[in-house]
């Protein structure tokens, strides 16, 4: 009984209570995915723990602690400081634009000495928090008014502009998609979405003509007809499909992926790691991986649905949608369903920034789950713990 009570009153919730509420089974699922990632990185380095797997393990260990910390903070803490985080992330993003080092032809990274930070990833989480906070205070009627939607649109537009400037089309689109999903969940009227879609459809040719970089155009054109330039821009997609297809149902076996190991497959440790997995473990391996991800998606929906406050629900689903988009965009890209946009496969691909975003996101999701019974009024009375 005390346990039940503690759930309703955060003041009475001890660390032990929170740890008991922590969704260990989902964390375990995340660990399994990370381990699959380590194995693939070991394979990508041709049977060596260096340089990828070892560094990825250390990152995962450190960021898991961060995940736990984020989850154990009170949900109201995140609500209270949502705008502050948003502001800090924006400053960081602008800092990149000013003094960021150039990586892969685009200014995306902030060199922090030990590891490079990609502020656009942090920006996504900050935007999710800020939007959740805004819509937490909005009634259904409020949301129906167009004027009321101007602040959240500004919240989205500002970071989108800077990320686009880097230029990073993939992350921009993901940010827009997550924001759109959150507005949809918050009750923004359907006709508005229809209007936006029509506007975008009209704007695409204009953007193509005036704003898109040549390499972005190349990617889209290559996606539409990869055979057009088999050794140039279409090389990645063709080699990826060859590797995948040749894997068949059961795959070629661990470390036996000929296409990946003979370097026909580009960037196999990062964006194209799913291809290597599907080459070595076949359709079966791909399906198992998708099932593991689906468990997490379903959990995200479930946790959000159970949450008794709007902020938690919006954060929970925002994080879930973000995670889903990572998975979907990456896999759809390497199997030739959408253009190559440079999105990593979360928990598997080598890279610190994406892992940080994903695990911090899970921290917030678990935080929502732990604090699901807290009721927070719209005007946020008593959010100070």
């Amino acid at each position, binding site marked *: 009984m005390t346990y039940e009570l503690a759930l309703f009153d955060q003041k009475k919730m001890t660390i032990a209570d929170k740890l008991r509420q922590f969704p260990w089974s989902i964390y375990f699922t995340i660990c399994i995915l990370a381990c699959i990632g380590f194995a693939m990185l070991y394979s990508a380095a041709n049977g060596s723990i260096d340089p990828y797997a070892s560094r990825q393990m250390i990152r995962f260990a450190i960021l898991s602690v961060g995940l736990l910390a984020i989850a154990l903070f009170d949900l109201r803490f995140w609500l209270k400081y949502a705008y502050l985080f948003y502001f800090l992330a924006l400053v960081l993003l602008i800092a990149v634009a000013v003094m960021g080092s150039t990586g892969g032809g685009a200014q995306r990274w902030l060199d922090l000495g030990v590891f490079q930070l990609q502020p656009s990833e942090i920006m996504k989480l900050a935007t999710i928090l800020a939007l959740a906070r805004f819509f937490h205070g909005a009634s259904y009627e409020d949301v129906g008014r167009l004027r009321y939607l101007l602040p959240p649109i500004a919240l989205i537009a500002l970071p989108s502009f800077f990320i686009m400037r880097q230029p990073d089309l993939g992350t921009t689109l993901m940010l827009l998609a997550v924001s759109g*999903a959150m507005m949809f969940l918050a009750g923004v009227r359907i006709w508005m979405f229809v209007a936006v879609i029509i506007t975008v459809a009209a704007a695409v040719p204009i953007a193509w003509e005036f704003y898109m970089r040549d390499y972005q155009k190349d990617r889209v054109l290559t996606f539409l007809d990869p055979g057009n330039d088999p050794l140039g821009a279409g090389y990645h997609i063709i080699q990826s499909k060859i590797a995948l297809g*040749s894997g068949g149902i059961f795959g070629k076996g661990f470390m036996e992926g000929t296409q990946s190991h003979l370097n026909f497959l580009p960037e196999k440790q990062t964006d194209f790691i799913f291809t290597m997995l*599907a080459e070595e473990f076949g359709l079966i391996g791909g399906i198992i991986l998708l099932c593991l991800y689906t468990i997490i998606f379903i959990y995200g929906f479930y946790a959000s649905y159970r949450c008794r406050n709007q902020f938690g629900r919006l954060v929970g689903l925002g994080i879930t949608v973000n995670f889903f988009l990572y998975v*979907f965009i990456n896999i759809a890209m390497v199997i030739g369903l959408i253009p190559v946009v440079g999105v990593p496969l979360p928990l598997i691909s080598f890279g610190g920034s994406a892992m940080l975003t994903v695990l911090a996101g899970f921290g917030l999701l678990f935080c929502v789950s732990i604090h699901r019974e807290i009721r927070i009024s719209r005007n946020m009375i008593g959010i100070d713990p």
Partner: protein
Amino acid sequence: MEEARDQSRFKIFTRRAMVLGGFKATLLTALLGRLYYLQVMKAEQYSNMADENRINLRLLPPPRGRIYDRNGEPIALNRKNYRVVVIPEQTSHTASKRSMALKQTLDKLGFILPISDRDRRRVMKQAKHNRSFVPITVKENLTWQQVSQIEVNSLDLPGVTIDVGLTRRYYNASVFAHSIGYVGKVSAAETNSSNDPLLELPDFRVGKGGVERKHELALRGKSGSSQVEVNAYGRIKRELSRVEGKRGADIFLTLDVVLQKYAMERIAAHRSAAAVVMDVHHGDVLAMASTPSFDPNHFVEGLSVAQWEKLRDNPHAPLTNKAVAGLYAPGSVFKMATALAALQKGIHPHAKIYCGGYMDVYDDRFHCWRRGGHGKLALRHALAQSCDVYFYDMALRVGIDYIAEVAAKLGLGVSLGMDLPNEASGVVPTKEWKLEKLGRPWRVGESLIAAIGQGYVLSTPLQLCTMLSRLVNGGKAVVPHVASKRFHDDGRAYDLPEAESLGLDDKHLRYIKQGMDMVMSHPKGTAHAHRIEDEDYEMGGKTGTAQVRTISKAERRRRVLKNEELPWKYRDHALFAGYAPTDRPRYTVSVIVEHGGSGSKVAAPIARDLLMATMKRDPLRQRNPENVARAMPTADDIEEKL
């Protein structure tokens, strides 16, 4: 109120979350569908593409067959060719400094062996174009000293390695140049006419003349292959399978190094000449000389433009094998064909014809070479003294068409089917031939000219040698050859067929041989001065002096100019065809010296010396050909010797 509002918000949230979830499920299904399509429905196709991607078939060129003379002396072998190659990748660890490092390496290498600016530029250019792990040849044909110096300094020469290839090397090169030929780069026409993938290898060489070309397929062997797995940059990771090729067949020639050298020496004094020595029963060509010659090794190493132009523009055609491709009027050597035709037409060998120094046919006067004439003579003396009028008479009796028929049996005017390329077939005219070629009817006077081997008649030294062999070997259609075996395209050897009988009358052959014997033995014989006096080695033969200009009536009235008084190119061709020993002949020889003057003075002594040398080389010194076993060494003996 507040509670109710929150409730409506929650309901909308839940409803829309359901929609969102459904949307995601749809997207996930799309992923699964696509994976199924790629990995199940299209799996086979992509599997094939994957193999094509990574498996590379490399050809292993077989070592070319070696060529030996009849006694196992090497003529063409494959020599190890040490090349110095540089791998740009290994010159420096950092890609950006590679070009500098490569330059430094070349500088250091320049102290050991001279590297021309052209080579240097080529290496730098290739380094820019090729993948950095592809070896680039800096220089070929290194000396031992250079190789060892590079090996010793290898620590100072990063990226430099010594590579061993096989190159053709000819021994006694210029002596055998015409019969062996040489190897050279594959031409576009050769690539197109064959689908042997070996021809597409950049370093591959094919036979370009002589035996090298004729037996190209046997000498080439069969390529092996090595299936290797390569990565996306083309670097070999491992070998998957290997099929060893078959080395080219070794060829033993019938030529004899010693005789060949001697023959070349013997004709070397003349600007342009050719000689053939042949075994009358088997057709083995023991020597085949043609001068001027060239060094085939230069072709293997690569000829400079200047060298090539010099060879090509030399009026004495050093690149032509005059023994098989040089066409000359046979002159009096042809008279044996006319004589045989006459005998076969029933002319009695002892029937005498009067030679008054000329013969008039219609309005034309045909001269004998001897101004005063020979008086009355029969066949033997007509041959021995080479009386032209006798053969004019025979031509009128027999007719040109029949002479041509008999000449063809002896190998004149037809292709002999020798195992060398570019064999010329020559001409023995017929009435039909002239009408067809020149569009004019045959004139009787032309029969007379043809009967003494002038006019349209053209033959090669090899044909004359063959004709003589057929006349003295009992009328067997012996075919000359330089390789001791024939080869199927796959390199399997088979023996030459035995020579068939031509169906000639032995009596006729005996009369003609008597005539030819007397050319040497009879005091009046045209080559009596150059006979072999040793009874064991006695020879017979026939001189020929072929006119290359028309002697005008005015000149005849004054005095026919002597050869020495004429410019070189208007002098007569000197010919001689002979055999030895006179008792059961074993060898024949034919010699032509272009514009050499008189056959008896110039060609006969050479022929005599060659026959002498040949008989002395005969391993068994036995006159009976049936008992002569061929002492040919086996391939294994040779391997051990080397």
